């Protein structure tokens, strides 16, 4: 098991150092999320109370849609020079390829969130009154679930001709329960509600993460056989 994590980290650090050099994907994700925030900040009057109701949805909207841009690229880059076959012929567990990609995608999306969420709060003139620790926890659990499912489906879609179009079609319906729970938990915490009101949503998100992580971890080998 230790070796799986070590190999996963090797793959993730390769992806991250690639991204650090080219800044292609993160640049695209940041531009997209900034545009969404800018457009919505003009569409809604920041002095209006309705803004508070919009912010939880917007946090997840920019996470999911900018994240899909990154997910799309994560396996396409492995098809250049058929590098995926190189990984598959290496003495590593196929699951470590999946875990490595999950880790790299999670860190990439989280770094976009670190920039875009504060920008969202500033442009909407939103004063944070909830508990920041709980907010971060909800964002991390929700993002992890999105990346767990998204990375698996990105690997599946990468073999198809129109993978950019196929990924959202497969991913968005599967994400619905997670996103409903994430938006509800974020809303409760931002409204300074007690954490007990959000616990059931957090439990649902954690169960979703664990269930899909286990399923994707074991099924990934079969996707690789077909690629």
């Amino acid at each position, binding site marked *: 098991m230790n070796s799986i994590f070590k*190999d996963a980290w090797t793959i993730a650090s*390769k992806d991250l150092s690639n991204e650090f050099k*080219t800044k292609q994907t993160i640049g695209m994700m940041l531009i997209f999320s900034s545009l969404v925030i800018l457009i919505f900040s003009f569409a809604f009057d920041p002095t209006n109370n309705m803004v508070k109701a919009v912010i939880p949805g917007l946090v997840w909207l920019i996470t999911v849609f900018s994240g899909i841009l990154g997910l799309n690229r994560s396996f396409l880059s492995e098809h250049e020079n058929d590098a995926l076959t190189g990984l*598959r012929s290496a*003495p*590593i567990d196929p699951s470590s390829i999946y875990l490595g990609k999950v880790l790299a995608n999670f860190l990439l999306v989280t770094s976009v969130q670190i920039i875009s969420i504060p920008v969202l709060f500033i442009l909407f003139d939103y004063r944070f009154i909830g508990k920041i620790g709980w907010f971060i926890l909800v964002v991390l659990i929700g993002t992890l679930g999105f990346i767990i499912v998204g990375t698996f489906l990105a690997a599946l879609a990468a073999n198809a001709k129109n993978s950019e179009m196929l990924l959202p079609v497969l991913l968005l319906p599967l994400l619905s329960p997670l996103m409903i729970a994430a938006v509800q938990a974020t809303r409760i915490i931002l409204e300074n509600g007690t954490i007990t009101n959000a616990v059931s949503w957090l439990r649902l998100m954690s169960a979703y993460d664990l269930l899909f992580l286990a399923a994707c971890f074991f099924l990934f080998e079969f996707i690789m056989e077909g690629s």
Partner: protein
Amino acid sequence: MKELGTMLELRNMTKLLGDKLVLRNITLTLEKGEILAVIGPNGAGKSTFFKCTVGLLQPTSGEILLNGKLVKKNSGEVKQRIGFLGHESFLYNTLSPLENLKFYGKLYKVKDLDRKANDLLKEVGLYLFRDMPIRSFSRGMMQRLAIARVLLPDPEILMLDEPHTGLDQEAVALLNKIIKKKQASGTSILIISHDFEQVHALADRVAVLKKGKIISTMALGSDIDLPAMKQWYEKEVSSS
């Protein structure tokens, strides 16, 4: 050159892709320190045969034995001992030659990785380009680096799928020198090639694969010259 003992043994290996039987009861042995070339017409199943042996595809039936031990599905131990050079280079365009080798070296758990990677880059003539991203490399340079990648973990078996494709005369001579050196150190080598000249120059034995079946094998002694080998191949392919 050859050492005693069988390195790799395939017993009645069959592969069904969809409803098409791509490999039919392939039985073949590769001795320690032997160079075996598999030749055959296009679509004969040569690449599928390689992929099944490396473990990228699961054979539908049959057994693969490595050093007399039965190979299990997706065995890391087998992958560690096989160096596979495919049609593509399996390299990352945004990384430099050194970074590519270090990345694969970590996955293969290569000890003394820095020194080994640098030595191999010198051996394949890419040391001066070690820190340049490989996206601007020519096909020949990519192939040299791909060869270095395969040699990095010191595999006991080298499986080379058309290794001479796209190489200039100098690079062909370098590759042949490396192959002969590896053979001398006891590495068993399996080559798929359409290049009869190189097969004749390198191989100890040739097997002909046609329609997923090994139809004939022949030992290449000093008494068999290139035209005789070609004549034998044409006769075997047309008669089966």
